[in-house]
């Protein structure tokens, strides 16, 4: 386990080197793009020679599901996220390999000395797919729209770092004039946008590349309402535009000829399929009907693992169990510690999941150079000792433990394995209970469980997206656990800009979770698992499964 973790941490640190733009105290220095308006950084992603021009540049991939919406303000799921990278572009974009912030609509930006104000300078040739110019006003209105209650943006909270956004949103305000006055988004001129934060936010540039921060074309939205994302009405600003959308069959995108770097885009057509039957998806890959699939059937993993096209890499997500600390038989932290010690995570990943998942006794994946705190390894003897100390020698007198998970084959297998470990190592009785997804959510929120299965996928590339979950009474906490010290640490980290100090706060907080108090039991770190044709280039593995299509192209097959 140690080795795994080490490799993972090193890999991510390497990935994310220089991820964050600047440190507090730097004098309003241009951050991010060093070359200003030019595209020097893009050069390394150009093909080595022109041989690609002789090949058909049409990508068919399986997106794993139908997008619920193509409106960036309303997106919540992974399939939508993937498409957003093709159809829209924020102020900032992601480097396809390292994910560091790269110029998007903005060519360069500056940050004030206190880290609270960002000024974005737009490129002159940034255009909508209908040829109109993109202005700073477009962004301001788009952000207003995200906060507007009628939009129902479930991810509106992503804008909360912006000064006044949270207050505007929670008050349910609908007035654009009020937004201009109260929220820290300022149009300096057509090509300059100033964003004021209420506190320094180390990961703000990363947020600027997220879909909630992507712009929409006001006239189109106002004219067509909910129907503006139809292919006949669609206006976007990404490297591709929507050409055809047949729900549950296929979604086709073609190059946006008004995109500011249209010359760089090589694919001439992208078809996204929404297939969910993984066996069939794999069959399609084998028959070369698709060239990139984002998941593989776990029953065939032994066969697939051996293929060159298979890839697996860590993902920004953690699979874990919650302990309901309000239950009398889970109140004692020795009991929770014993339950944690009695779980052999390597058995789970190696024998149960078998998909390259990383066994984790820590909670937050190693993101943006963060090195997670050290949890406890499998130690059944110590677990037994602690359990006896807590008053239950050999599990005697311990009430039945109810383990809740949402109905799904993998969750069931993990739950059975862990129940078995607890039974064997601690001598307690575990009752498994599965609920359909929505019922499970209600039960978790009502804390109607003893131990509950959970998964958490980070929204942005910073430990905060994991750590703020366990604030006392937090909306996603649902364990009944809370400590003043923990809350303090997270609040300190929230306004700190020096990553060294921030990460020290996070580490101390995380240690409370996984080495001292145990409101949760981390099990493994999720992985991206899929298959990609070798001839498809410009596609890079990364920990957030982000694959901007503008870099992709086909090489001739050898």
């Amino acid at each position, binding site marked *: 386990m140690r080795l795994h973790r080490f490799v993972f941490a090193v890999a991510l640190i390497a990935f994310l080197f220089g991820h964050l733009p600047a440190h507090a105290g730097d004098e309003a220095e241009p951050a991010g793009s060093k070359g200003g308006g030019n595209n020097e950084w893009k050069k390394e992603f150009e093909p080595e020679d022109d041989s690609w021009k002789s090949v058909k540049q049409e990508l068919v991939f399986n997106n794993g599901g139908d997008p619920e919406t193509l409106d960036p303000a309303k997106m919540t799921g992974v399939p939508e996220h993937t498409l957003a990278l093709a159809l829209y572009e924020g102020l900032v974009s992601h480097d396809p390999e390292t994910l560091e912030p790269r110029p998007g609509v903005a060519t360069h930006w500056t940050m004030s000395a206190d880290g609270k104000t960002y000024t974005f300078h737009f490129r002159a040739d940034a255009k909508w797919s209908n040829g109109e110019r993109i202005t700073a006003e477009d962004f301001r209105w788009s952000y207003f729209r995200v906060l507007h209650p009628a939009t129902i943006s479930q991810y509106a909270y992503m804008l909360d770092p912006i000064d006044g956004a949270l207050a505007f949103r929670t008050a349910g305000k609908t007035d654009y004039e009020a937004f201009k006055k109260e929220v820290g988004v300022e149009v300096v001129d057509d090509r300059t946008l100033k964003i004021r934060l209420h506190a320094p936010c180390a990961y703000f540039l990363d947020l600027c590349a997220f879909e909630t921060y992507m712009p929409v074309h006001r006239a189109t939205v106002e004219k067509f309402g909910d129907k503006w994302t139809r292919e006949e009405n669609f206006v976007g600003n990404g490297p591709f535009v929507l050409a055809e959308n047949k729900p*549950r069959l296929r979604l086709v995108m073609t190059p946006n000829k008004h995109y500011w770097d249209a010359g760089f885009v090589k694919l001439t057509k992208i078809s996204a399929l929404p297939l969910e039957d993984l066996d069939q998806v794999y069959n399609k890959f084998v028959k070369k009907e698709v060239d990139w699939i984002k998941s593989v059937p776990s029953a065939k993993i032994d066969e697939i693992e051996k293929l060159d096209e298979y890839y697996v890499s860590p993902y920004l997500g953690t699979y874990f169990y919650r302990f309901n600390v309000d239950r009398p038989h889970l109140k004692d932290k020795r009991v929770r510690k014993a339950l944690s010690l009695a779980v052999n995570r390597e058995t789970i990943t190696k024998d149960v999941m078998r998909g390259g998942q990383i066994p984790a006794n820590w909670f937050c994946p190693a993101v943006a150079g963060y090195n997670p705190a050290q949890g406890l390894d499998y130690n059944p003897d110590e677990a037994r000792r602690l359990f006896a100390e807590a008053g239950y020698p050999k599990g005697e007198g311990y009430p039945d433990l109810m383990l809740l998970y949402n109905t799904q084959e993998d969750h069931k297998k993990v739950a059975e394995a862990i129940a078995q470990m607890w039974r064997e190592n601690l001598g307690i009785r575990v009752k498994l209970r*599965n609920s359909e997804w929505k019922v499970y959510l209600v039960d978790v929120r009502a804390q109607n469980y003893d131990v509950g299965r959970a998964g958490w996928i980070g929204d942005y590339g910073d430990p905060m997206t994991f750590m703020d979950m366990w604030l006392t009474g937090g909306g996603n906490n649902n364990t009944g656990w809370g400590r003043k010290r923990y809350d303090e640490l997270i609040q300190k980290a929230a306004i700190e800009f020096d990553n060294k100090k921030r990460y020290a706060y996070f580490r101390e907080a995380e240690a409370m979770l996984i080495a001292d108090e145990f409101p949760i039991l981390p099990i493994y770190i999720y992985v991206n698992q899929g298959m990609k044709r070798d001839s498809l280039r410009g596609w890079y593995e990364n920990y957030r499964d982000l694959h901007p299509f503008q870099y992709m192209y086909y090489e001739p097959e050898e």
Partner: protein
Amino acid sequence: MRDLIPFDVSALGLAEYAWLFLALGGLSLLAPPKRPRWLGALLVGLVLATAGFMAAWLGVPEGSAEPSWGTGILFVLFGVAVMLLGSLRVPLQKTLGGKTLAGVWLAALVLISLSLRPFGLGPVDDFEAWVYLASVGFFLAALLDTAGIVRRLLNRAWWGLVPAFSLFVWMADPFALGIGVNVLFATLYLMTLGVSTQGPELRLYVKRRLIGTPIVLLVLLTISFFLIRAAPGGPFDAEKALDAATQAAIDKKYGQDLPLPEQYLKFIGELVWKGDMGPSYKQKDRTVNEIIGNHIGTSAVLGGAALFLALLIGLTTGLISGIKRNSIFDYTSMSAAMIGLALPTFVVGPMLVLVFAMKLDWVPVTGWGSFRELILPAITLALPFAARVARLTRAGMLEVVHQDYIRTARAKGLSERVIVLRHTLKGALTPVVSFLGPAVAQMLTGSLVVEMIFGVPGMGKEFVNSAINRDYTLVLGLVLMFGVLLIFFTLLVDILYAFLDPRIRHA
């Protein structure tokens, strides 16, 4: 971000199976007394016991870590219980009276469910208990029906119960998802209310039925409206909790801030005056009308092709088997039909793909839009129906062959060909036609399994997903659509009867 969609067939627990068997046993009590069929009952019991045992073996029931003989034996016991019930039905009904018997059975059922609770087998929480009670209410409604209409109709509803049951199993955790099931039960119950056996005055009858249809649909929608909203969780619930501001915005946009009765009136109003089912909660860029419009064509094409195939294969084999009964052909085709019935589509589909797409390269693995892509899904969908049709046709043939009018035809010296095609077949088709009514409605509205395997963008997946997602408006739209189709096709069947059976026409 969203978690993966929960979907697991094998996760049915012991309690669910047990309760299901007992409930089905209870239902069978309502059937009118006929001559005892010991052998049939015995067979049904055995099949159920085996199925239960296999299920226990393959899918580990809740609460135990591995399959055990104990659970297997329990299932055998359940099977035997159902079997005994079936065989004791007639004598018991004669002594106690059908309704008293069913009442006693129901009481026992509730008692058993509740007494299993301490062992984690009965209703686990209030919601499940509520679902049990709703089901009990359903039975009570049947009991209180003094005119005997429901009892008679339940017999006919049996064909509907079969697809309902399949969906039931597919919905992974049936009693937690009791809502979907109850909607289905309600659909069936109410649908059958509207259907009655064919009478002498066909025209008047059709007229009456057409007048009754809107009322039936209204009742159906009303029940569905309140049931789906009573289910735990809402359409926007996800791993990440919504903050109060977003929740308030959602409630306002979808009118959820109004009192429920007001929401209901608004919904019915919009539907009646504008024909507008409103926006979908989950598919945010589309309205319910659009979603149904998008997918129903696909399902109709697939269902139509499958229907054609099913009739072609089923009628031909059934007819030949009926003529050459007890021949080699008869035995082989009827065995094949039995296998066709027994093999689930999720086995047949991938097998066809393996052979025709993977090995032979005749068709693409998945896709939709060309004739080539229609072949495999249509065959997969058609096979079980074809098997049914073949068996029904054969049985119909055997029954008609001994009728007086056939003997008369033969005595008149008609050729065998004319006898078969003009007289026998027509009579033999009656059971096929009665099966086809609900079957066509079902085929046209799609099959989740076939759609998943072949990537067909049809209605089947919408049915299941809308319930899972609590997409309130879409659920209601689909219930309405299915209700309309079912009424339409059963009506059509009744009219067809009159043409097939002269006794109905002239009575």
